[in-house]
């Protein structure tokens, strides 16, 4: 056996023993996700166990170095782990902005102390992070950050407001863009800092969306003390960190286009509408659209994998994340339009047990943010035109 085959056999055996039956199969409600943190909630005790086991092994962040609690796997090993997890339909052990966004930025820009302090607890799901980027006046024009950090010697005093802060009301810590040099050009006076959401002066207010849910918050900072040791990267060069992190965020949002977790669309449609004598979905127009979407989705999964391979081989431009984000988010919107068409009148229910309180409709509405959050589709297209196509004046 090759090393990789041995690794696959060992991984399969370990998962067989350690992945509880309760965490296998599609996640049928996004609210059942495991986010960890200081005050975690778990759908079942098995979900807690699953997070802890995977975290202890570093497999919640398989490719991070072992010295920071990660799995220390090679890219090929991580792919094997991924395929073995998919094979048994394992749910994600831990959903985490720490893993998807902050961690990669800390690995690139953080000090040794910061990495040792934050990364292991991110891997184990002991800390939940939120992202303080957007502001009321800094949406697509993200670098127009106005939240101020005033230098007080060994610390800063932060004042200002963030918006669209995902799960700010549930997060333990925030990674946040603040203006440390108001006189500098807008991209050059920003710093990237970390602080505890329990610090006096931090308040959050959930925003009710068209889905009726409140995954986003307004976040207010009123004389919040931030220690200088919690600056990531160079003072006033936070935009570099922000951009690197955005690339990870965009790849993460793009990944929703892979739709690994849910039931196959064709199956959902067949259960809802039925099949004809030849076993075809009994709505041939919808069937064609579903098949076309599944072609795109399968191709997109390979594009995600290939982008990872290119990054590993240092053949990728960082702006490739914008392409993945653009495509994956638009794909997910299309998928949910078709899920609604598949569900028909049944999918219109907003309340009640049968529809699990309108999960289909609420999820469909939630996806409309995919092409806005993390930079709109139009911003991604601008980035592609400028950095990947070198079009004039872009």
């Amino acid at each position: 056996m090759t090393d990789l085959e041995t690794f696959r056999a060992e991984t399969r055996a370990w998962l067989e023993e350690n992945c509880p039956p309760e965490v296998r199969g599609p996640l049928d409600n996004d609210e059942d996700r495991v986010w960890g943190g200081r005050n975690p909630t778990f759908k079942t005790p098995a979900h807690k166990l699953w997070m802890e086991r995977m975290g202890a092994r570093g497999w919640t962040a398989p490719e991070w170095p072992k010295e920071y609690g990660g799995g220390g796997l090679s890219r090929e090993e991580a792919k094997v782990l991924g395929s073995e997890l998919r094979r048994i339909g394992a749910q994600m052990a831990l959903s985490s902005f720490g893993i998807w966004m902050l961690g990669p930025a800390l690995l690139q820009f953080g000090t040794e102390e910061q990495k040792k302090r934050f990364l292991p607890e991110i891997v184990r799901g002991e800390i939940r992070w939120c992202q303080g980027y957007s502001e009321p006046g800094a949406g697509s024009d993200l670098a127009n950050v106005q939240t101020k950090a005033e230098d007080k010697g060994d610390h800063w005093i932060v004042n200002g407001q963030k918006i669209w802060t995902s799960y700010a009301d549930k997060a333990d810590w925030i990674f946040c863009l603040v203006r440390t040099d108001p006189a500098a050009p807008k991209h050059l006076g920003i710093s990237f800092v970390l602080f505890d959401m329990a610090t006096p002066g931090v308040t959050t207010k959930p925003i009710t969306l068209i889905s009726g849910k409140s995954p986003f918050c307004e976040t207010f900072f009123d004389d919040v003390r931030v220690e200088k040791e919690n600056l990531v990267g160079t003072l006033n060069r936070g935009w570099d960190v922000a951009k690197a992190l955005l690339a990870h965020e965009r790849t993460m949002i793009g990944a929703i286009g892979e739709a690994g977790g849910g039931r196959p669309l064709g199956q959902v449609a067949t259960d809802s509408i039925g099949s004809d004598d030849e076993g075809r979905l009994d709505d041939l127009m919808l069937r064609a659209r579903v098949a076309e979407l599944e072609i795109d989705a399968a191709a997109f999964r390979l594009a995600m994998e290939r982008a990872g391979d290119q990054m590993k081989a240092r053949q990728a431009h960082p702006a490739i994340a914008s392409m993945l984000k653009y495509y994956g988010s638009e794909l997910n919107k299309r998928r949910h339009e078709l899920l609604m068409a598949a569900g028909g009148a049944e999918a219109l229910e907003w309340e009640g047990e049968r529809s699990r309180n309108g999960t289909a409709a609420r999820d469909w509405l939630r996806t409309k943010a995919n092409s806005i959050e993390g930079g709109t589709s139009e911003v991604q297209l601008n980035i592609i035109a400028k950095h990947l196509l070198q079009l004039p004046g872009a």
Partner: protein
Amino acid sequence: MPLILTEEQTMLKEAADGFLSENAPIAHLRKLRDSRDADGVSRDLWKAFGEMGFAGVIIPEEHGGSGLGAVEAGVVAEALGRTLTPSPFMGSGVLSAKVLTDGGSAEQQAAWLPRIAAGEAIVSLAVDEGAKHAPSRIATVAERAGNGFKLNGAKGFVLDGHVADALIVAALTETGLTLFLVDPKTQGVEIERTVMVDAHNAARVTLTDVEVDADAVIGSVDGGEDLLEGALNLGRACAAASLNGAGDQAFQVTLEYLRTRQQFGKLIGEFQALQHRAAHLYSEIEIARAATIGALQALDAGKPNAALAVSVAKAKAGRVAELAVQEAVQMHGGVGMTDEFDVGLFMKRVRVLNELLGDAGFHQERMAQSQGF
């Protein structure tokens, strides 16, 4: 396996791109077309393709080929898509070479594989019959006669059929499909060249009481379906690669135009309306490429889902290349409609490649069936 080319594969790509841009750029296609060349394809170029090791890329080394895999065949096919070069590569070097390598008898292999690999022979696969690719609805019949078979039927879209040294014909036998190696000079074989929209080459082949010996059978009687499907899937994945080559080249030409053409006192590439369309197209092309290398690698690895991966690649690459050539003509404006500019040639080639071996709809249908809806 990372979804990127290895160093050796990258070298092959550079060699194929270099060879074709030097020896068979688009001017080569134009010359064949405008001189109304009797063959529509250059035998000398095919020979040179053999000398470079491209013609026999998938043919085993013991038969004079390079003994490489689907990914390498796709690399050559993509290069051919870029330069729009008429070449027997798809018909002979991919489809027929695959049938003979997988199912040919020792005699059949010895007779044809070294000659294909050397670029000396053209062997055409005759599958399609109606307007659309439908290998499951083949009507050509082979009845037992004497110690052999008698073939009747009509084939179309037979790549390079008018210049073929041998034909591989798919026909119905008692309980299944059988592949026959047929000499085009056999009595009852009528071949008519079809001059196609893209100035590439195909033929209609009519078979009337064509008698062949039992040793004309490739593989087993009634057992040709898997053999054919294996070759078709390799061909489909290579067609996807050619579509990527043609689509991307049309896109590159268009990007250059956006960077240089001025209107309203500005470079037209400064207009956001065009930037966003170009950026969208770039994304689509990258995704089609990933699907294609994924399919080619799946074929090489013998993965159980390889056929589905091939359908994903062919459908996606087809739709994307179609978008690329439409945008190429539209963004060029009036000159895009002229014969003098190359973009129209890409549009024509992409239409043909889209129809070849199953269009996006054909492969979408396979996706639906494989997922059970």
